[in-house]
């Protein structure tokens, strides 16, 4: 049963893979995004692109109704409240996150990941938070520590609610990082030999056994999520899960491979509004 499903997936991908592969040779990031948007919207003409922020929920009214019922008074409000306290607690030197982040930390999440020309690499919002900590004599948090970085960003990202995702890919070095992320996204790996795109491009909107697969556009705007209402998961933590699900060894969170992937993947959501932190199944 499982095998048949996988074979069906593989068969479906071959044709699409060629079409997408061929079209992206000389593409710009904005061109990539538009082409992908066209692919989804022509396949699903009844679903508006702005509803892709709901992920798979956009494809299923029953799931969406549950999301809305839970978001009405989310069970994880007290966690976000903990994040707010972390955010507002001054460092030992009396400074705060707000005093060392651009615009006081408001309406900035949609600019990240950002290509930092001085450092010559992609920096994520988590990197910027850690830079802020170390500059003020505090220890950096582990990127994948949900109790610290996770909870803090579950609140911090709410300060950017409504901001339009605006990932810039301009310099040649930035383009190279973007292309590296794109390569990871479209490259097959793991014992099941899946790419990110196998599920989230070619099969977005289809079911993989019980799971409805979400489109890659709209993915990056709503993290972290509280799965099942209480299990906090950040975007790179989710990538980690995806790699494991296709039986691949996940690259380290906060490393170049993950950061470049997040850079590319986030740019696909350019133009969509940010919303943190949300419920997912």
């Amino acid at each position, binding site marked *: 049963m499982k095998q048949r499903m996988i074979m069906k997936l593989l068969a479906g991908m071959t044709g699409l893979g060629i079409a997408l592969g061929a079209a992206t040779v000389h593409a710009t990031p904005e061109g990539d995004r538009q082409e992908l948007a066209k692919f989804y919207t022509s396949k699903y003409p009844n679903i508006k692109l702005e509803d892709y922020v709901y992920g798979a929920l956009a494809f299923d009214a029953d799931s969406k109704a549950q999301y809305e019922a839970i978001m009405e*008074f989310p069970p*994880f409000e007290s966690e976000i409240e903990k994040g707010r306290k972390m955010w507002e607690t001054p460092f030992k030197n009396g400074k705060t996150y707000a005093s060392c982040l651009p615009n006081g930390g408001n309406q900035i999440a949609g600019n990240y990941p950002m290509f930092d020309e001085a450092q010559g690499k992609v920096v994520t919002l988590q990197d910027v938070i850690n830079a802020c900590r170390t500059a003020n004599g505090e220890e950096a948090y582990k990127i994948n520590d949900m109790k610290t970085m996770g909870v803090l960003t579950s609140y911090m990202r709410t300060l950017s609610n409504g901001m339009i995702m605006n990932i810039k890919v301009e310099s040649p070095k930035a383009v190279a990082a973007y292309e590296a992320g794109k390569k990871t996204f479209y490259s097959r790996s793991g014992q099941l030999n899946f790419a990110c795109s196998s599920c989230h491009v070619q099969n977005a909107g289809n079911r993989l056994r019980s799971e409805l697969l979400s489109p890659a556009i709209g993915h990056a705007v709503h993290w972290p999520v509280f799965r099942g209402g209480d299990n906090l998961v950040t975007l790179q933590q989710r990538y980690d899960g995806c790699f494991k699900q296709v039986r691949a060894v996940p690259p380290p969170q906060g490393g170049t491979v993950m950061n470049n992937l997040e850079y590319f993947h986030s740019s696909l959501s350019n133009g969509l509004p940010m919303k943190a932190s949300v419920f997912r199944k």
Partner: protein
Amino acid sequence: MAEPMRIRATMAGDVADIKVLMNHPMETGQRKDAKTGQLVPAHFIQDVTATINGVAVLSANLGSGVSKNPYLGFKVKGPKVGDKVVVNWTDNKGDKNTAETAIA
């Protein structure tokens, strides 16, 4: 001690729409701790009562089948903006919590 509970109460016409979020693990007593393999003892809210200006409007018995951080929504006809909603809960270990808000 238990974390605060939150209440939202708003008038819609002549009906007050009241929503309560309680913070509680709601352990069934059947879940095993992932690390120790031991059963986590049952720990859940058993009673919830709500009053508006001192008049009882809801008295609930809950079982451990209510989700973690329980949510309760109910509707009451008759109150006015500014009326005081008080919600109390008691769990199976005797812990209690109370919160109040004015209807907006």
